[in-house]
């Protein structure tokens, strides 16, 4: 095996096995910190040994076994320091056999426990995101810090504090009870969707508009959740939503760094494979006949968009109908704003503007951008200009600012 092949095997093992190693060790030792460090040491050992000894036949089992030995060494070292040698001696030298002894079944998967622990509602949202990317995603602290434009030391503190709270406050390492599962799962999905959205349109002015690293990571983690909970409609819905959004990424920013709205995108640049996979997921959910949740409805909206040959062929009545269902589930102003955008295509900008005005979204750039566009279409240039100004002042991202600025400057002079 060449050096390149070994390096590729290590990268693949990291992508496929990191979460399982951390999750298994957390299950055995009851401590995220120990699990994380031992997993990192095991991968470092792989980087040292595999080029010499060759890639083991079952890399995952090798990594888990190695990490367990590292964890036991570490606990012994600490125990000696703390003079609690007796306890440490009770730890078995033989790592638990991996992949065979435990009863299988998705709900029993340690990776699911790990996800629910990292996304526990008693942790701040920023901590949930960081912890999930580190523990389940296997991103380094430096990578996470870069992704969220935070100093590495600050990100490290955030993760350490979260682990400390989990340990001291007794956040359980457990899949929630059946009655709590839907609410807790929607908390996990919300974290994954936040990661995806931060990648899809960064809220930070200094960041690239679209960052494939974060969207890809969010999709990978959502695929993992789907593999663990294949029957759940909202998990499938979120995956479909991400795939259908990601498919449009190549057309989303113009060559000169300006955000391109959906109706102006070059649809030939869309990723057909991702669209096909997303559509298949949406169709499967429709065929199930079960009432769709929020992510399934948003996925269906995106399926309608990606189904249309060009913007003019979009089935707007179906989109409005889907938003009607969404408003019944979630009557929040943002959902009503998005519904109004579809209404503008169906019933005209006047009707839509009446629905947009008065929504309590004054601090949200998309609210002002939507108003600006509707006012522009109604020929009310002066008011449109003022709305663009508000949107530009509130928009976080340079690509979005560039687009809004050009639209504003394209307005005809006059009121």
């Amino acid at each position, binding site marked *: 095996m060449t050096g390149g092949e070994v390096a590729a095997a290590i990268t693949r093992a990291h992508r496929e096995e990191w979460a399982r190693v951390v999750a298994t060790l957390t299950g055995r030792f009851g401590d995220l910190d120990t699990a994380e460090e031992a997993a990192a040491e095991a991968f470092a050992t792989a980087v040292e040994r595999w080029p010499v000894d060759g890639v083991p036949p079952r890399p995952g089992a090798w990594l888990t076994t190695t990490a367990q030995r590292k964890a036991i060494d570490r606990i012994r070292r600490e125990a000696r320091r703390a003079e609690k040698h007796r306890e440490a001696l009770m730890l078995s030298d033989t790592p638990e056999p991996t992949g065979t002894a435990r009863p299988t079944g998705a709900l029993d998967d340690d990776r699911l426990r790990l996800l629910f622990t990292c996304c*526990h509602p*008693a942790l701040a949202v920023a901590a949930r995101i960081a912890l999930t990317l580190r523990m389940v995603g296997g991103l380094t602290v430096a990578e996470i810090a870069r992704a969220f434009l935070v100093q590495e030391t600050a990100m490290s503190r955030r993760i350490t504090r979260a682990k400390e709270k989990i340990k*001291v*406050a*007794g*956040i*359980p390492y*457990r899949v*929630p009870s059946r009655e*709590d599962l839907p609410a807790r799962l929607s908390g996990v999905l919300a974290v994954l969707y936040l990661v995806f959205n931060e990648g899809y349109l960064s809220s930070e002015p200094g960041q690239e508009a679209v960052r494939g690293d974060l969207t890809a990571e969010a999709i990978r983690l959502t695929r993992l959740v789907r593999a663990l909970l294949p029957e759940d409609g909202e998990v499938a819905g979120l995956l479909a939503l991400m795939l259908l959004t990601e498919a449009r990424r190549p057309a989303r920013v113009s060559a000169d760094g300006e955000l391109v709205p959906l109706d102006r995108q070059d649809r030939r640049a869309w990723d057909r494979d991702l669209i096909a996979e997303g559509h298949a997921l949406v169709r499967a959910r429709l065929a199930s006949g079960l009432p769709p949740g929020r992510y399934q409805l948003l996925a269906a909206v995106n399926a309608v968009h990606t189904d249309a040959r060009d913007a003019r062929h979009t089935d707007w009545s179906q989109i409005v109908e889907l938003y009607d269902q969404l408003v019944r589930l979630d009557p929040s102003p943002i959902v009503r704003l998005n519904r109004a955008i579809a209404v503008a295509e169906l019933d005209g900008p006047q009707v839509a503007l009446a629905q947009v005005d008065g929504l309590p979204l004054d601090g949200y750039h998309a609210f002002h951008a939507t108003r600006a566009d509707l006012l522009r279409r109604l020929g009310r240039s002066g008011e449109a200009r003022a709305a663009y100004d508000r949107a530009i002042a509130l928009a976080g991202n340079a690509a979005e600012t560039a687009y809004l600025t050009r639209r504003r400057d394209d307005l005809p002079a006059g009121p």
Partner: protein
Amino acid sequence: MQYLLSVIFDAPGLATPDEDVAIDVFNDRLRAEGRWVFAGGLGTPETATVIDNRGGAAIVTDGPFVESKEFLAGFWIIEAPDLDVALALAADGSKACNRKVEVRPFL
């Protein structure tokens, strides 16, 4: 594990009779389920006295150690296997006493 459930309130005043009944029901349940360690209501912050004997001579100060809009009105100490159980009980406790509740683990 043991958790301190602090009852947080922003105005002095005793629990209403309805709240008292609900708190009694909740306390009985804590005892029945083996979660009860201790609980009590506290006098207002104005009734507090701070004493500092670090310097050898005890200095007595009238009033609470920290002035704030919100204060500790009472507390429960409960026994629970993990934070999920503690949070579920705190949610019921908050409803019973009609106040915010902070959950904090004992070390």
